[in-house]
């Protein structure tokens, strides 16, 4: 009798396990990587495919060298998941898409940006968004955030070291990506003129002198040979305008229940792998190319970026809740900052 019960229980157990393990259906992933299937992001995505199998998804990766096409394919349902920069993913989740808000990750200490602490802010934000409590924030309609990983800080590359203060940005030509409202806002705020560009030509425009300033991560320095544009008189300002991220967005109905949250947890744990690539790129820039700005100007830049992002949040480009969370995280790593005593952004 006992044997029989045991057998039945075991059989039930097996049946339950079978029903609990999600059915594998093919999901197509549109991955944006400027280097296509040979790039860093596509390479990291290959490891993710294996992890996703354990979460009940059978991903099939497809590389796109044009982010716009990748995003449109996702929007029209030709892919079930999108891997792209926050410039494009913001349209599907404004909370996660606000991580790269102007200056939202920058921690300034003694008039200098503390890069490790700034990346720590991004890390903590990603960890917070990875948790199950953040599920509601990470879901907007049928779209869900299934992962965030760092892509590096965007720095200003200037043709001349004379452009060393906010005031001197006035009248300068700055490359601007048409689809990013934050760039236009910033450029007009400092009295500079935007020059329309995209990812395939902004480097060339800087190198041939069509523009005086571009914003780009360290990863662009070598492959786009931006040292040519810097020449002997240019510099990279060691003050990040924003910290860029890559984000994964899923069409919720195509994935098993709970997939996105577990997937966000996977990517939060992959943060060090993303940072290793960023650190390599930042170390690859010779010391002489960097330029630190005076402490007083750091304060001016910080205020300028803060005012811009608050303005953009009011205009609907950024999510105020996300800015609020990031401010609290900034203050948790740098309590002494004067902004922590104010109600701004809260």
């Amino acid at each position, binding site marked *: 009798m006992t044997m029989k019960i045991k057998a039945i229980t075991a059989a039930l157990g097996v049946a339950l396990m079978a029903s609990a393990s999600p059915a594998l259906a093919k999901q197509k992933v549109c991955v944006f990587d400027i280097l296509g299937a040979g790039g*860093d992001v596509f390479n990291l995505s290959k490891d993710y495919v294996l992890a996703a199998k354990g979460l009940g998804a059978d991903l099939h990766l497809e590389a796109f060298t044009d982010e716009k096409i990748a995003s449109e394919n996702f929007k029209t349902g030709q892919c079930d998941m999108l891997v792209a920069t926050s410039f494009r993913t913001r349209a599907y989740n404004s909370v996660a898409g606000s991580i790269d808000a102007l200056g939202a990750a920058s921690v300034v200490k003694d008039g200098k940006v503390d890069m490790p602490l700034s990346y720590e802010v991004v890390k903590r934000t990603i960890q917070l968004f990875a948790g199950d409590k953040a599920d509601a924030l990470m879901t907007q309609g049928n779209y869900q955030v299934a992962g965030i990983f760092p892509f590096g800080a965007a720095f200003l590359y200037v043709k001349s070291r004379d452009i060393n203060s906010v005031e001197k940005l006035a009248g300068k030509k700055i490359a601007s990506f048409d689809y990013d409202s934050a760039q236009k806002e910033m450029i007009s705020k400092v009295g500079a003129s935007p020059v329309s560009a995209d990812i395939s030509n902004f480097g060339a425009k800087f190198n041939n002198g069509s523009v005086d300033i571009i914003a780009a991560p360290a990863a662009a320095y070598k492959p786009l040979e931006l040292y040519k544009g810097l020449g002997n008189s240019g510099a990279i300002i060691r003050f990040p305008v924003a910290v860029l991220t890559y984000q994964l967005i899923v069409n919720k109905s195509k994935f098993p229940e709970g997939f996105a949250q577990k997937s966000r947890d996977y990517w939060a744990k992959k943060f060090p792998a993303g940072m290793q690539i960023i650190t390599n790129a930042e170390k690859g820039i010779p010391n002489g190319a960097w330029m630190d700005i005076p402490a007083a100007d750091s304060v001016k830049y910080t205020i300028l970026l803060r005012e811009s992002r608050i303005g953009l949040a009011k205009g609907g480009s950024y999510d105020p809740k996300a800015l609020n969370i990031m401010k609290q995280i900034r203050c948790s790593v740098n309590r002494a900052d004067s902004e922590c005593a104010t109600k701004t952004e809260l």
Partner: protein
Amino acid sequence: MIKAGIWRVLAISGVVAVAAGCASVERGATNLAINLIERRIIPPQLEIDDVDMACRFATANFPLISGGTRAFGGDPQLLESLLLVSSAACSEQRAVEEELRYLRASKQNNIEEAQDARIGQKRLLEVTARRQLRAYDAMRNKLEAKYNFQYGETCPEFERDFDELSYLLGTVAGLQAVVNDIASQQMVGVPTDIAPKSERALKCISNAKWWGVPNAARAVVWSILPGASEGKDVWGTFRLSMLIGERQGVRLSHVMYGLSALAVGDTPRFRDATKRFANVKDFKPSQQYALVESLSGAVMTNLSDRYWSENVGTRTPVGSMGKYWDEEAAMPEGMNVDDLLN
């Protein structure tokens, strides 16, 4: 006392002078030997069409040849570059085996096995990228010093084919180092500006003389670097380069065409590359550069094996390069299946 001092100084100077003389004689003799190897021993080796043998030889003998010639003051950098290119083919082949294991395990949902194979693949790609970067650096250092030019900015005027061949293969190795380092998760830190520099450097050598490879390699860079393809006919360049390669018996341009198609996810073009590779009419492999042609065949097989494994779970069936599981075999003209069955 002073006299003795002078004698001592003279004696020491003499010993130093003789030693320096010996060193210079040694260096001269070693460089002569290196030159002899480059002119007389390498050409017949390039005629051997066995990639496995060549890469194992290079891997096993690199320490002896490099260390031995350097110990006697020689400058074996071009020889080292060639040996490293060859040796990288061995580690790359092992990396592909791990990749195929990963693809098979992944298909069977054996996640641990697949993850283990991915780790194995990345480790071997790191070794490969390191060898390829060293091959590129050695070529660049030696040739820049010899011809007094700036790589990627100005062109050298080559005195001999061996230097030109080293320039071509070292440059391609540099490009491969970039790709393999990224795939290894940037374990080496290969500078990515090798890609645009190589693109310009390849303009210095004749496309017609070197099997269409210089332009095909440039087209690879055009197709992957943002903005580089503007005003360029990427696929037309591949087609022309393949034609040149087919006539000269070296199908390395075909491999580059296939690689580029895979990088941008263009499956029809990748299939086209393999079909074209497999179906060159009256193809005669180059005798002089049989090793380069064999290497092209090995790499093309690797590309095809990846594609097959990902889709079907096995590598390319024997004799099936350029044929695919989902393509129906066409009935010979004039034949009707119903007639045959009746």
